């Protein structure tokens, strides 16, 4: 029988499991290495060089992974723009995924830039080059994190202080905060739509400026549109996939009706994306390059298969009714989508001469450590706050009541 998610409820169980400590160890190593990197320079810990000046931190942790962090954007568009309130129950999970992924990405940028102390200048608009796409990305991301995501995530946090065991003054403060959030909410979700639309597309535009240095199978004026739509698709895949893993891990029922719908929407968006991508290849007359079978064409075809197969499969109910099947398809889609977001920045980037780049081990640790940090944040939050969706019966059981009053 299908469960019907209606309330968000914190997960019972200990936070400090062996998984937690493993992640914490990785994150700790990343922090130590980041400190060392500040003194010794980027070259001392990474494989970056004058040809490949952007590597994992920028291209993977930010450009690629914030696509998964678009879960809040993807669900938000459904709930608020298309007015599908039945998905509202997923909003907390989606907004949490987003805030963690963006925070982790921003830390990545902080470690990646060579002169982080100069970031203070961003506060002074007279130093801005307002034509710079990177500036737009930096400002829109920060704005989204501080204005959009904070507002969307705040209720779940302060709500806790309304519970009985906190002093009256806390309750009062929490109440004021919630009232404030409710007052500004429509303006905040407006920003939570506009700002990611801007920076998720501009992450693609960034590579446009590299012109002929990005292989023509990827370099196209369509990059901003393709990047944005892929962020939407991956955001969807992320929310469905993460909810599935979470429910499995903590023994909660799946609402396959909602997840199946999301899977369907993901598939439709994937079809639109594929039409644009293939149309663009035809339109620019790049078809011969697809069948050249050099490493670029192989990556292109791989990407096509990884995105096409799940896209087509998820259109069919048979593949969406079975959680295991749907999960596998979503993982495949995610790998393909992430590949699409990563390839133009590194694999299809042609710096000339004989430059070579492969991430070093410390670089992989730092990159992985920032991801671990986000997962730790997730574990902590879902175990302390009401985030993950459950059926009403679970909610009442947690309140010590067997049924609704």
């Amino acid at each position, binding site marked *: 029988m299908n469960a019907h998610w209606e*309330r968000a409820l914190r997960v019972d169980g200990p936070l400090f499991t062996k998984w937690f400590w493993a992640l914490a160890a990785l994150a700790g190593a990343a922090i130590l290495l980041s400190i060392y990197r500040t003194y*010794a*320079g*980027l070259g001392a810990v990474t494989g*970056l*060089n*004058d040809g490949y*000046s*952007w590597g994992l931190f920028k291209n993977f942790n930010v450009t690629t992974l914030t696509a998964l962090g678009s879960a809040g954007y993807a669900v938000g568009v459904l709930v*608020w723009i298309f*007015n599908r*309130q039945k998905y*509202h129950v997923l*909003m*907390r999970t989606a907004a949490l995924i987003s805030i963690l992924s963006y925070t982790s990405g921003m830390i990545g940028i902080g470690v*990646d*830039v*060579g*002169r982080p102390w*100069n*970031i203070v*200048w*961003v506060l002074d608009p007279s*130093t*801005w*080059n*307002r*034509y*710079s*796409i*990177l*500036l737009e990305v930096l400002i829109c991301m920060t704005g989204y994190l501080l204005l959009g995501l904070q507002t969307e995530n705040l*209720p*779940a946090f302060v*709500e806790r202080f309304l519970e009985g065991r906190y002093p009256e003054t806390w309750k009062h403060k929490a109440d004021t905060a919630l009232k404030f*959030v*409710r007052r500004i909410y*429509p*303006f905040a*979700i*407006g920003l939570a*739509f*506009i700002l990611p639309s*801007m920076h998720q597309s501009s992450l693609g*535009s*960034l*590579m*446009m*400026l*590299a*012109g*002929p*240095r990005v292989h023509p199978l990827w370099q196209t*004026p369509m990059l*901003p549109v393709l990047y944005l739509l892929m962020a939407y698709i991956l955001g969807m895949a992320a929310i469905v996939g993460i909810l599935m893993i979470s429910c499995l891990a903590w023994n909660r029922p799946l609402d396959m009706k909602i997840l199946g719908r999301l899977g369907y929407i993901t598939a439709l968006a994937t079809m639109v994306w594929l039409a644009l991508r293939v149309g663009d290849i035809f339109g620019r007359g790049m078809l011969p390059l697809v069948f050249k079978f050099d490493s670029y064409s192989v990556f292109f075809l791989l990407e096509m298969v990884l995105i096409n197969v799940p896209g087509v499969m998820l259109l069919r109910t048979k593949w969406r009714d079975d959680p295991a099947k749907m999960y596998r398809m979503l993982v495949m889609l995610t790998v393909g989508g992430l590949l699409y977001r990563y390839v133009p920045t590194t694999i299809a980037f042609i710096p*000339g*001469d004989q430059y070579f780049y492969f991430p070093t081990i410390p670089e992989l640790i730092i990159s992985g450590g920032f991801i671990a940090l986000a997962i730790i944040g997730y574990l902590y939050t879902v175990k302390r706050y*009401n985030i993950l969706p459950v059926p009403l019966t679970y*909610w009442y059981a947690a309140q010590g009541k067997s049924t609704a*009053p």
Partner: protein
Amino acid sequence: MGLNRRAALGAMATGAAAMAGVQTAKANDAKILPQNKMVAMLYDTTLCIGCKACVSACSEANGLTPDTGESGGIYQMPKYLNDKTKNIIKLYVDEKTGLRSYVKAQCMHCIDPACVAACPMAALQKNPVNGVVTWDGTTCLGCRYCQIACPFNIPKFEWTEFNPKIVKCQFCDHRMAEGKGPACCEVCPREAVIYGTREELLKVARKRIADNPGKYFEDRIYGEEEAGGTQVLYLTHVEPQLLGHLVPLGKRSIPEEVESVQNTLYMGFLSPIIAYAALTSVLKKRWQEHEQEAKHIEEQTGLKEQL
């Protein structure tokens, strides 16, 4: 910002025209003409003997430690341009025909520089008077977007420094301030690289082509039009793209192309603002409905809304 950047309105027109597939010749002309008064270099592969005097002179004039890496510490021998090398002489040899050529590589001082367009903090600037592209570390984030954007792979980064700098040829602007020319041009024994205004040097180049029919590859001046034109010009007897540094580029500058795409999407920042205004008016209504429904549910079930 680069002096060539058009006002938002002009750019919007360019964007619209680009959409319609029209090349806006007028905008381009207006961009290139005044640039001819700016400082320029002309390098001629048929004159260069590969003595590399210009490479040593460059490090000396710029106070750079000579990179002796490839020679095992014996003499200056950089492999590529790097954080110690702003100017390099490369050799091209065609194995089959034996055809050979030197090529000098340094910043091209583009007329519409991609590095300047890229830099978020305007740490890279194009001098509005002489057109030289320089880096100022005061606001530089070390983000290295300039390295990604430059089609000639010019800006270099100090990978092992605590407060790394971007290193690139600045046309010896410190020497020009003293009334001297770029060190490489002044030291060259063959006048293979000379400096002057872009207008003068284009004339010189055209005269050389006219006086020596068939000597230069396709009678072309590389840099006259590439990527919107560069202030460093090349006469080559070999196809430029074989030489490594002189990559094949279209006539239109890349920043201009990107800007036209961004402008079709953003319309000079008008579209995000309009979209936001339209959106919030809808969202305010949705939000009221949502609040009412939440209140309704709370009255019925006693469950407070979870926002």
